[in-house]
């Protein structure tokens, strides 16, 4: 039998290079969803594979990794992902925000202010903010290209007309650099202001949907 052997941080170097290229493009065009050839990871889709691939692609041996899930370091999935990188990359892990160089998160942003040499990696289930207004990718990509966000404004307006409030409490859409509207993952709305002008680099990975 071919005994399985795995690379540093699980992914092979070719795959990491492909992901890093997508990350560079994503940084250059903030808010734009860059398609990438997402791989099957040893944890299920929908359990943070996008974040895990981004983390695997940027992680170096000197990095210190923190993983949070719904704001906690010791919920089951956070433990599982932290152990995965401790095992496959041998990196140091921490639960202290200030000690971490890479923080992978599911749906919360740490209360401690982040600084410039930190990277916050978000796990994103559905990156397309327009998905529930228009299910077709061909349509939504056209709408982004034309910056045609009327549908979103109408949705928010209808919420106010019907409920008196915008009835979106998490996965609240954001507009990045006055151009692209994106879904910052199901982060609660009250965390969104922490994203604005954050000194740390914020990367968003969606594995199943194959977008960074």
């Amino acid at each position, binding site marked *: 039998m071919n005994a399985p052997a795995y690379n540093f941080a699980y992914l092979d170097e070719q795959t990491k290079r492909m992901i890093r290229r997508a990350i560079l493009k994503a940084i250059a065009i903030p808010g734009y969803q860059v398609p990438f050839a*997402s791989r099957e990871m040893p944890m*299920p889709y929908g359990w943070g594979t996008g974040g895990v691939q981004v983390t695997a692609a940027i992680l170096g041996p000197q990095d210190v990794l923190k993983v949070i899930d*719904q704001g906690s370091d*010791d919920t089951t*999935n956070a433990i599982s992902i932290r*152990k995965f990188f401790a095992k496959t990359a041998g990196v140091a892990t921490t639960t202290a925000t200030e000690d971490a160089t890479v923080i992978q998160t599911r749906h919360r942003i740490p209360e401690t202010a982040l600084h410039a040499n930190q990277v916050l990696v978000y796990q994103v289930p559905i990156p397309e903010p327009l998905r529930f207004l228009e299910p077709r990718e061909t349509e939504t990509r056209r709408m982004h290209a034309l910056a045609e966000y009327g549908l979103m404004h109408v949705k928010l307006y209808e919420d106010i007309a019907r409920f*008196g409030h915008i009835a979106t*409490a998490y996965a609240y859409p954001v507009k990045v650099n006055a151009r692209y509207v994106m879904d910052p993952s199901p982060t*609660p709305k009250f965390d969104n202001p922490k994203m604005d002008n954050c000194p740390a680099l914020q990367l968003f990975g969606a594995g*199943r949907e194959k977008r960074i």
Partner: protein
Amino acid sequence: MYVAVKGGERAIENAHRLLAHARRGDQGVAEISLDQISEQLGLAVDRVMSEGSLYDRELAALAIKQARGDLIEAIFLVRAFRATLPRFGAGEPVDTGAMRVRRRVSATFKDIPGGQILGPTFDYTHRLLDPALADGFVPEAPAAAEASTAPTPRVTDILGRDGLIESSPQAEDGASVGDLTREPLNFPADRDLRLQNLARGDEGFLLAMGYSTQRGYGRNHPFVGEIRFGEVEVELFAEDVGFAVPLGSIALTECQMVNQFKGSATEAPCFTRGYGLAFGQSERKTMSMALVDRALRARELGEEALAPAQDEEFVMSHSDNVQATGFVEHLKLPHYVDFQSELGLLRKLRKEFAEANTPDAMREAAE
């Protein structure tokens, strides 16, 4: 207030230890070997290889054993391993016309060159539970005859000679084949990527989509031109030596559906094609795949595309069982924060509703 439940590291470790124990079952019962799985649950191994996109019987058997017989879990294990493998190159197109045929049936012609060969099949069996199989069953030796040397050309090639079926589109020489595991998928997708997606797609999903076309949702009048199962040679063009070298042989099932005509003022009417291919013996899968492939060609053939099976984005985005099971099952993960914020909003809305609907408020509104 709901408080996040902390899932301790030890709880996870203990759960996995218990899983290993449950996987082994009663230790008074002999452990199942990979050979036993590969030999006696061969069709399960075929499915895991096909949908796992990795032709390795031993690893597929290991995955089935590790997954406790849960085939989607086994497919997932194989995929996750496959994703880490380096690519040396792409094999030469296999010639299914030169297949060493173990089974071959056509529903369009009774007499086909090379003959029909039923081979090992459940077709025509009576589905009666057989108590004799429960223990110590020794099957009769199979009937044997001299192997025929007659060639077994593909039925669709025979139809093609008379122009009765559209010709199979040929790729340009040296054109590379798309690979959705290496490049992100964009819509509309070319047929090579569609076929790759369907080949990896969930058998049950494709079965249901194919079935829906038979029931009027995108009907395309299919006939089984041919199903063949057997071994084909795999070759790789080696740059160093300048010719294709054989790597070995693999078992494949191929289904070619012959479907309703197309034609126009300038083109004589002819049958159209739907294509299915899978590792091992996977007839249900390849037949379903061929039906869906044909349905997805609606736009290309100028047909109205209204049914789900004709909707490329719908089919291709939901066919992959590893993606689907992951996202459905992620609902088990804690959603305390999201739920908490929904709850907060709902309470606020209910409070406002109650205030607006007090008897006093109602009376004011009425006046």
